[in-house]
């Protein structure tokens, strides 16, 4: 029994995968989403004020930012190059040799600089490199998007499935909960909670979004479970005397996986939009954290700089678009099966 279940869900995943990759559009979108995730994951290696590896004063440092900061704390990539030119040695700088919060390059502040060879996408109002901040912004966006949606999915699937499976009173309670949360304008509610609690960390934002946005997933799960509980195989499972937990886990939930996955994917996009909007209003991630919305807020403060408006906005829109395309492709793939 156990083996066969596993086989079916694996086969299902395989089929969905094949359907999904049939369209080149989906492949590009999916690839882009993975690219942004990787960008966020390795942001510290891609854009940092410290080199990946270097040899200074006859000593080799690997990832000095993590392992040996003491000797190199005063140097950024540029001043390190000068030092190496004087004292000898070598350095392997990251592709973008600026940190997200680095305001000085070689001791000089160059704020609101237009895109140039040094700063490929220019600098912001405090002299921080825009490209470095965009790369580190990918981290905040994906962190909030993925983890808040994980929370939403857990909450939504749990509540939706329980409500639909047990029906009656609990179903009505869950329905009222969903209807209530839907009635609140999202941004007002989340802004309100952020304002009341005070901005503390990005995880707080994750929890708030997770706690308020599970309704879509719950609604989808509820509808799908309602559809499946009347299927014959569920009835057969009940006739066999299986426990509620086992029926739900083995027979009902795998069947609702597809629509939930689709809804969660769209949820990631909307969570990223919420995060950036909140950061734009100054109520997202706490200030030094790089975020696309925060960059756009800087742009709003100094409106004449096109590079501050354009590039973070493009990054944000492209990511949201890619996730939405992936969700649409997923939805088609699930529908076909």
């Amino acid at each position, binding site marked *: 029994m156990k083996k066969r279940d596993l086989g079916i869900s694996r086969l299902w995943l395989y089929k969905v995968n094949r359907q999904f990759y049939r369209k080149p559009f989906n492949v590009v979108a999916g690839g882009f989403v993975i690219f942004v995730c990787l960008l966020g994951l390795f942001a510290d290696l891609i854009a940092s004020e410290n080199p990946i590896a270097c040899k200074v004063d006859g000593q080799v440092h690997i990832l000095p930012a993590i392992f040996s900061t003491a000797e190199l704390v005063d140097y950024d990539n540029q001043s390190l190059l000068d030092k190496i030119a004087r004292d000898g040695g070598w350095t392997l700088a990251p592709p973008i040799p600026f940190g997200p919060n680095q305001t000085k390059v070689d001791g000089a502040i160059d704020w609101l600089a237009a895109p140039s060879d040094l700063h490929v996408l220019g600098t912001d109002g405090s002299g921080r490199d825009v490209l470095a901040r965009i790369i580190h912004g990918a981290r905040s966006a994906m962190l909030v998007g993925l983890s808040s949606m994980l929370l939403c999915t857990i909450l939504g699937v749990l509540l939706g499935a329980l409500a639909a499976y047990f029906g009656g009173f609990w179903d009505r309670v869950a329905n009222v*909960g969903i*209807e209530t949360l839907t009635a609140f304008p999202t941004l*007002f*509610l989340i802004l309100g909670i952020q304002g009341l609690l*005070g901005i503390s960390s990005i995880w707080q934002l994750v929890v708030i979004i997770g706690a308020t946005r599970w309704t879509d997933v719950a609604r989808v799960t509820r509808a799908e479970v309602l559809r499946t509980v009347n299927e014959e195989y569920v009835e057969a499972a009940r006739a066999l005397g299986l426990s509620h937990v086992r029926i739900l886990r083995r027979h009902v939930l795998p069947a609702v996986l597809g629509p939930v996955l689709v809804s969660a994917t769209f949820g990631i996009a909307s969570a990223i939009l919420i995060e950036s*909007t909140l950061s734009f209003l100054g109520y997202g991630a706490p200030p030094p954290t790089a975020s696309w919305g925060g960059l756009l807020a800087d742009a709003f403060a100094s*409106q004449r700089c096109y590079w501050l408006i354009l590039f973070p906005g493009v990054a944000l*829109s492209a990511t949201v678009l890619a996730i939405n395309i992936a969700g649409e492709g997923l939805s088609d793939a699930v529908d076909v099966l």
Partner: protein
Amino acid sequence: MIGYIFKRLGMLLPTILGISLVTFILINLAVDNPDTAGTDTTGSAIDAETAQELGRAYGLHLPLFLNFSIEDAQTRTERNIKELSDPFNRKSAVRSLVHIGGAVIPYLLPKLDHLKGDSLSAALEALEDIARSIGHADALHNTNDPLRFWQKYWITYGSDFTPVRAKRLVRRTIRREDRLALNELHSLGTYCLPQIMESLNEALPLEAQIRLVDILCEITDRDDPMSPYFSLKQRRDVLSRWNEWWHQRYDLYTSFEGIYNVSGAITETRYFRWLSRVVTFDFGVSSRDGRPIRDKIMERAPVTLLLSVLALFFAYIIAIPLGAVSAVKKGSWFDRITGVSLFVLYSLPTFWVAMLLLKYFGSAGHLNWFPSQGLASPNLPFSATPWDVFVDTAHHLFLPVLCLSFVSLAMLARYQRVGMLRISEQGYIRAAKAKGLTDFQVILRHGLRNSVIPVITLMGLQLPYLISSSVVIERIFGIQGMGAETFDAIRSSDYYWLLAVVTVTAVLTMVGILASDVIYALVDPRIVPGRQLSKRI
């Protein structure tokens, strides 16, 4: 049909309960979290004093749904007198007696003879503070036996402490400048507050209002007087501040009588307080500018609603034909291109588009086609005709409405397309074609009209989205609506506005969803019997 509408209305009640719960959680978050004040850089967390006030305003000291031990001035005083004998609670009991003020006198003085030792001296200590507040400090100071003083006081003035007497004094004060009545009112202290507040809300001449507010200030030590030079609006603001103050504390000073002791079990609860605020649309007074929240909402809501309704209108006007045409020409280049561009539009962040439009179409140096701030030109001449004003407003509204509508537009057009495709597979379309109608007639009369209905009902669900977006759009375009005010309110910790606006928008949205459901049912009666709640398995 009527049954369905009533059933739908019945489903509204638990949702109201749900909204109250969410708001309730919000208040609790605010009140329980005073220690974070000052730790974060933006200073947005609530401070302890505001938290306490908020707790009073929303009745957080009360039980949730049922209150079987109602506390009014009398029971509170009696409890505190009992606590006087307990050395651990003595200090707090004295403080709470002093806090209640003159209203304790008719309940404390008759009991004075039964108190002994430390309790008596504590009671006298409390009374000394109260004497100061009701203007008998000198007389008390001149005696060397305070207990005897208070016994004599009760014999002489005890009969004054009745609601009827207080009411008569208030009436005299209202009628004319009566020094004697004022003095007597003052010596009743907080005991006469219910009567004063009751009269204050009647239609009174200005001088009488000023006299009453003056005596209120004197009794309560709260400095919010009314001046004869105030405008009508300022006078209303002062009155609503006093009303809010009273609303927060009336149970401290009032003695509940008769039926109220029973009905208080329901009315003196946290939930009823909240509900009475929502039903009467009274959310207190803004801590930012001391104006009643109701007035502010009335002032701001039309702006936001105008933006939202216009955005919805244009979204529908464009989306329905667009979706219909791409459904009819399914698979054509037109369909593909609109499909892709709608998808892109749907994914664009509103605030980014707003910034781009503002930069490239509304600022000097680029195409300066549209004004960038506000809803009206500051230099519009007085002689402007209504047409000029209309053109000016439309000119200002263009960019904000565009930004608000495009996401809704993209969504609605996609729904319209899907709905139209589904309809075109129906039997009656084939029948219409078979009886020889032209394509145009089939599409317009049978396809479009049927497929529009579900899309129209999405209106209710668009509302929360549009109101949400107003925060960003109003901030970027400098429009003074609910969104902009909410943003400012959060920055200056105006939690009254925040809670009010969250509640009001939620209730508004709910009513919108309800309305669109009912309209759906009216237009398309097929859905009513099909609406079944899940069956228990």
